[in-house]
């Protein structure tokens, strides 16, 4: 609650929250909001590449589909991918971080060395290799992104667990006979939650960007999916005539990622009092 109040007091972070909530509503209500909901799959060759007008506010694409409708429908894709990837990466990374941070033994070493291997190469490169080895498609892209994003959660949780394991309340819990599993999941994890939440929020934005890039490169979503990255890639052959074709899907990416980044920034400030002081 304090965090939420803090975010509302920080206008920039509140703006980020506003964007994210707005986009989420658009994603949920997409089929009812889109003026031409069937344009995800239907094409109308006769009205291809029309510039923006009252009828088609964002213009139409190379198959005559309304770009506004496709941007709205694409919001669903973006959220679905981002949520699935972040949740999956958390499901792997958080337990690994907890286990590795709890005691300094060989298992902790092994886990962190494995994490280092994944961090030894940029996420996109590894995701590309993985996306190629499995059959390219949106499912593959999601698996590849989750497979390469969990080390970031592992790192965050590892640092938090190491910080917390020496605290008095952990000693007290161990003293009254609480099992390590209980301490870790019921007491250490909630204390690490702010850091995880910040990482997840930033990760949502990052995943949307990377997923769009995978779609653009042809390893992610496949036509006729109304994916934003894919739309920008399809638009390249129709430049410079159809400037509206890549512009609006790209702006949608920018706006949503901006929302998540601003929100993540605000959450970070709210969670870390040391940083809060430097801003005021």
């Amino acid at each position, binding site marked *: 609650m304090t965090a939420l109040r803090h975010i509302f007091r920080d206008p920039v972070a509140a703006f980020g929250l506003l964007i994210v909530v707005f986009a989420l509503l658009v994603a949920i209500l997409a089929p009812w909001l889109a003026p031409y909901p069937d344009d995800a799959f239907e094409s109308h060759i006769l009205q291809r590449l029309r510039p923006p007008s009252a009828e088609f506010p964002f213009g139409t694409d190379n198959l005559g589909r309304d770009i506004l409708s496709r941007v709205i429908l694409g919001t669903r894709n973006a959220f679905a991918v981002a949520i699935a990837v972040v949740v999956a990466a958390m499901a792997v990374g958080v337990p690994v971080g907890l286990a590795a941070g709890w005691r300094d033994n060989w298992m902790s070493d092994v886990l962190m060395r494995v994490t280092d291997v*994944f961090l030894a190469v940029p996420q996109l490169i590894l995701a590309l290799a993985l996306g190629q080895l499995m059959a390219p498609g949106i499912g593959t892209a999601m698996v590849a992104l989750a497979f390469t994003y969990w080390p970031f959660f592992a790192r965050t949780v590892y640092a938090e667990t190491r910080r917390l394991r020496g605290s008095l309340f952990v000693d007290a819990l161990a003293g009254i006979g609480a099992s390590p599993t209980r301490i870790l999941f019921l007491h250490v994890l909630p204390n690490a939650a702010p850091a995880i939440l910040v990482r997840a929020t930033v990760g949502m934005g990052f995943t949307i960007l990377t997923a769009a*890039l995978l779609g653009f490169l042809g390893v992610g979503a496949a036509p006729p999916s109304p994916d934003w990255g894919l739309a920008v890639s399809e638009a390249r052959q129709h430049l410079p005539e159809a400037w509206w074709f890549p512009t609006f899907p790209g702006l949608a990416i920018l706006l949503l990622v901006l929302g998540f980044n601003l929100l993540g920034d605000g959450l970070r400030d709210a969670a870390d009092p040391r940083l809060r002081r430097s801003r005021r």
Partner: protein
Amino acid sequence: MARYILRRVLLALPALFGLVILTFVLSRVVPGDAAATLAGDAATPAQIADIRARYGLDRPIMEQAAIHVRQVLTGDFGRSIFSGRPVAEEIIQRLPATLELTFVALFLATVIGIPLGLLAALDHNGPIDHLVRLLSVGGLAIASFWLAIMLQLVFSMDLDVLPLRGRMDVALGQPARVTGSMLIDSLLAGRLDMFVDACRHLVLPAVTLALPGLATIARFTRSGVLETLQKDFVLYARAAGYGRVRLAAIYVLRNAVNVTVTQIGLLFGALISGAVAVEAVFDWPGLGTYAVQAILSADYKALLAVTLVVGVVYAVVNVAVDVVQALIDPRVAEEHR
């Protein structure tokens, strides 16, 4: 200092070795039957068996792993399935183009980002600060492939002031290849016209690539300077009558910039990822386009080799960053004794 560098190199090796193993596992486990993948859809069982024997896929898995490690260590990545040429040769051909692009982008990001961060911190909560904050948040949210296309649309197609793609005008030919960097090679050849043209070709890709880095650097410099400004020595220096500019630009910045330098190492990963997108848009003949081409032609050997090479470059840059950090702040090297 030498011991510190050696220590850092030794620390980077296990992760790289792990990466070699990981690529092996990926190439053997993920596609199911690697031989069938190599042979294609229309292959007969005899052809698949032949490929299996030729690539050593019929041997025990541990032996295959050992062979894979030995090949990678000797720089032998096999032949590209797409072009039939050795992958190592193709990568050496293309690596300089990517390095040139990323280093120019990194240079731009640093020389613009650090002063911006410093200005923002000195103007804490003022108009410049807000502007830099907006720029740094926006720069990280923009999809580089989209920005690249937008810049192309405006500067190459509409205004026609900068070239659309490539590294050099075809009419000019190419300078003799010495380092593989167009900027250096054209200067070595004494061709100023080529140098200028190479610069013009670099502007859009480098600016696109630099923006996210610039955002990060400005942001970390800002918070580093803000933190340092609260230290006692600043108060003392101010009382002793040091000029505002001299104090901020030399004493505060040197203390504050260390955090930023760490970020530059981490940024390199983002730059390489961004380079894939930027190269694809600008037809830049580097590793990024090579990776994209490998994806399109299902050339998994080339893609895994790119992964390894990028891993090595990444490790080298991060070791270099640690060394630079120790040079800026000698305490860093001493702490690790």
